[in-house]
């Protein structure tokens, strides 16, 4: 890595679900349209990350925890996210802009047989379109379900963290377009410090459910280059609660494959030895 590692900190507590990030991403990266459908999943008609969706805003409607009436993000004022509507049984709306995590230990990159997926000088993970041969191995390897093959093309596509913009000293299109600074871009170390402060601030303000996700360099993927502040369990947002890079177990798998191959060889050889001189005309 010749440059400082950069990343995203997505603070979902201030996401207003405007989807400007989705639009900016599509526009800047010329990502093709991938179907228009109404899903009845709140305001989410994008559904999931995929080959042609590199930012996805999730919308979750759920009962407000502990009868709390408002999220005191701004003292004395209501926030865009939780406007009190009065009475019991109130719902709250969680919104979160999901993106490729640019893992420290990236399974997609590890399993790619062509070297198409590579680690950039910014510490991000990018697919080279002219090298990808459409084998599709990265797709089930990703513990977050991010990367996908584009239909009728077969090659895999995902967020590049706007590699072209980073090279020109610009921030990624989604972060640039975000009107509430829910998507923050910057050096990863700095973002982690900022995120820790933000969680403390929310805890002090009476939002005990605020927690970071993907920030820990000791987690199963070595920490995410794009991490989040969430207000509920990760699986509620469609994120895996304890993702692990599948190649962590690869040395053990190769050992078992070797032992299995030797067992095959030994087992068949034993059959020839055991039947030697018998049953032949």
């Amino acid at each position, binding site marked *: 890595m010749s440059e400082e590692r950069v990343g995203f900190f997505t603070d979902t507590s201030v996401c207003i679900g405007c989807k400007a990030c989705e639009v900016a991403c599509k526009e800047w990266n010329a990502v093709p349209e991938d179907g228009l459908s109404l*899903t009845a999943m709140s305001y989410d008609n994008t559904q*999931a990350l995929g080959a042609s969706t590199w930012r996805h805003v*999730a919308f*979750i*409607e*759920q*009962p407000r925890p502990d009868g709390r009436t408002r999220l005191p993000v701004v003292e004395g004022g209501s926030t865009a996210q939780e406007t009190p509507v009065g009475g019991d049984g109130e719902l709250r709306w969680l919104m979160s802009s999901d993106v490729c995590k640019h893992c420290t230990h990236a399974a997609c990159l*590890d*399993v790619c*047989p*062509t*070297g198409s997926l590579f680690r950039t000088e910014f510490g991000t993970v990018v697919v080279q379109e002219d090298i*990808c*041969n*459409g*084998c*599709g*191995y990265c*797709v*089930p*390897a*990703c*513990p*977050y*379900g991010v990367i*996908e093959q584009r239909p009728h093309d*077969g090659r895999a596509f995902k967020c590049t963290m706007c590699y072209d913009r980073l090279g020109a000293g610009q921030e990624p299109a989604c972060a640039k377009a975000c009107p509430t600074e829910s998507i923050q871009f910057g050096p990863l170390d700095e973002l982690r410090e900022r995120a820790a402060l933000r969680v403390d601030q929310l805890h002090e303000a009476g939002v005990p459910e605020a927690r970071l996700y993907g920030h820990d360099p000791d987690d199963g993927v070595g920490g995410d280059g794009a991490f989040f502040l969430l207000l509920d369990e990760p*699986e*509620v*947002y*469609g994120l895996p*609660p*304890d*993702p692990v890079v*599948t*190649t962590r*177990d*690869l040395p*053990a*798998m*190769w050992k*078992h*494959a*070797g*032992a*299995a*191959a030797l*067992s*095959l*060889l030994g*087992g*068949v*050889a*034993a*059959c*020839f030895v055991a*039947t030697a001189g018998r*049953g*032949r*005309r």
Partner: protein
Amino acid sequence: MSVIQNARRGRRRRGEQPVVPRAEFRSYYGRPVIKKPSWEATDIAGYFFLGGLAGAGSVLAAGAHLTGRTTTATALKVSSLTAVSLSAAALVHDLGKPSRFANMLRVFKPTSPMSMGSWLLGAYGPAAGVAAASAVTGRLPRLGGVATGAAALLGPAVATYTGVLAADTAVPAWHGAHRELPYLFAASATAAASGMALVAGPTGENLPARCAAGLAAVADTAMEKAAERRLGMVAETWKEGRAGTLLRTARALTIGGAVAAALFGDRRPVAVTSGLALLAASACTRFGVFAAGVASAEDPKYTVVPQRERLEERTSEGTS
């Protein structure tokens, strides 16, 4: 658990009493967390089967070659060459554009089982080809012998690395069984190859194949059980739906074929029938494991519940 709109209960299936309560879990509108493999079952599960048949077939062929069972040796060498050629065709077909295959040999990458497999096939394929060509034509017997030996040494790797290929993903039904899959695939490959030897070889030469079939059936059944134990609640995906049907069929065919071959394999009709049963069993095992993987990727339960349990275990260890 409070009524949460996006929470989803594990589905109950008709006529089944769960031993443990169905896991409660939460998800985003029941949508999968990971993406399922986009591979065609015919291409990739078909390749798992054919690669196993070829690889284990080369080992049996070498044994037959060394012990003077010439007819069986030649038949297995031809079947291995055919199977590995069809494997390559299936793999190229799955890429969509054949010209893309060249990029597979662009790097040598031990962290990618698919890269290692490509190189392995690149070495094994020609060896199997030379072995078969020499056996059929009778030319260059010395080179044929060397190629037979090389194919027999590389063949077991071809048969077992596919277990790693599947397990090295986030697919719960595959990754969870990453210790068992290579052994299961080795057993299944041996069943297929001994089945081929029973079908294609004369009864006078088939005693080692009958022995191998028995051994394979024992190992196959044991490894499948071990995998299911290891998988915990994810084992549902091996037992239910299309995967369950295929794997149950595979077990019946494996045991039936192996018992018939071991006891009455000296009779030609029994040898052929049991051989075909073993070949079909191996195909069912591969397609069954493939289907289980897809089913486990499609339902967020199999991603969320085991990870949640792992987290809770770690938390309780941390606090106690």
